[in-house]
């Protein structure tokens, strides 16, 4: 099983597909997320035509649970190290994976070919905190222990909560940086973050948006729809040779 040590931490990664071009890196969300979030949903279908790399963020899945390093900037640095061998790639993020992906785009613009943000956890007026999953039934589909033992250890034995609380908010200026690459946002109409798509479009009209009738974990509950949107977006982008 592929493990890679970067920045002093052992990460679990997975490669799918045998295609040689146009890699896609799929990022999961915090707490109940792991590379299973995409392996058991859209990743296999995407990998039929493009190489897909999945990873477990530190403290998640089978990656090492370090004490620190859970802020989006640190996660972006982990992503940088874990993709150093790839040509420019597409980022597909779910939940907090979107925030880490955005910070990576801002730090490493030329490494990113395009972005898909699935349920970016931008706070609405009620102030739901980023990175939380509000739909327990989807978390239950990911495994009963995922919501107990592993998550408890993440919350109690690391600085994750403090680092999240100290995170600088995603500003409209940050969102305008999404104009640098072709970008699609997929949001759930019944998610606590349902307003994120509209907010992103106001800040950055170049971003395409699609709203599905689902909640925060619609990559699980609406996997077929999300897969169709992902493949449609990937196929519709301009060819690599013509891309700036």
């Amino acid at each position, binding site marked *: *099983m592929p493990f890679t040590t970067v920045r002093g931490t052992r990460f679990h990664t997975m490669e799918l597909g045998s295609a040689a071009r146009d890699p896609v890196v799929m990022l999961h969300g915090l707490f109940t997320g*792991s*590379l299973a979030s995409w392996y*058991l949903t859209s990743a*296999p279908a995407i*990998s039929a035509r493009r190489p897909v790399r999945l990873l477990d963020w530190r403290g998640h899945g089978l990656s090492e649970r370090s004490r620190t390093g859970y802020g989006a900037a640190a996660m972006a640095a982990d992503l940088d190290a874990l993709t150093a061998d790839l040509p420019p790639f597409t980022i597909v993020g779910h939940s907090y994976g979107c925030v880490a992906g955005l910070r990576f785009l801002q730090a490493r613009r030329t490494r990113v070919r395009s972005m898909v943000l699935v349920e970016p956890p931008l706070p609405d007026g009620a102030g739901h905190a980023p990175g939380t999953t509000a739909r327990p039934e989807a978390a239950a*589909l990911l*495994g009963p*222990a*995922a919501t107990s033992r592993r998550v408890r250890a993440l919350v109690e034995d690391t600085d994750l909560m403090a680092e999240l609380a100290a995170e600088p908010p995603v500003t409209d200026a940050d969102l305008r940086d999404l104009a640098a690459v072709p970008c699609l946002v997929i949001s759930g109409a019944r998610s606590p973050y349902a307003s994120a798509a509209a907010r992103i479009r106001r800040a950055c009209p170049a971003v395409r948006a699609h709203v599905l009738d689902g909640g925060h974990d619609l990559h699980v509950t609406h996997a077929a729809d999300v897969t169709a949107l992902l493949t449609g977006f990937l196929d519709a982008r301009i060819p690599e040779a013509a891309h700036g």
Partner: protein
Amino acid sequence: MSEKDTILGDVGRLLTEVVGEDFLLDEEITEDTTFSDDLALESIEFVALAEKLQQHYGGRVDFAAFVAEMDIDEIMGMTVGTLVRYIADRTAAAPSAG
């Protein structure tokens, strides 16, 4: 020992590597055992098992393609027997060389 018994043994052994022997002390792995209900497997543990099986059986199996056909609740609710039958079908179709 039949081919399926051998594969069942492989699945049990690799499952023990993933979750540890203590977790499976009271559980006999049979073809009717389900991953989520009987074994309370986390999704990442199922994926880890799939990775180990992929490594063991090599190019004769393609678990990503296998799970691509199913919803996540079908995958996690799968019986060990379904997995064993998939492996048996693929290894019968393409037996290992030598």
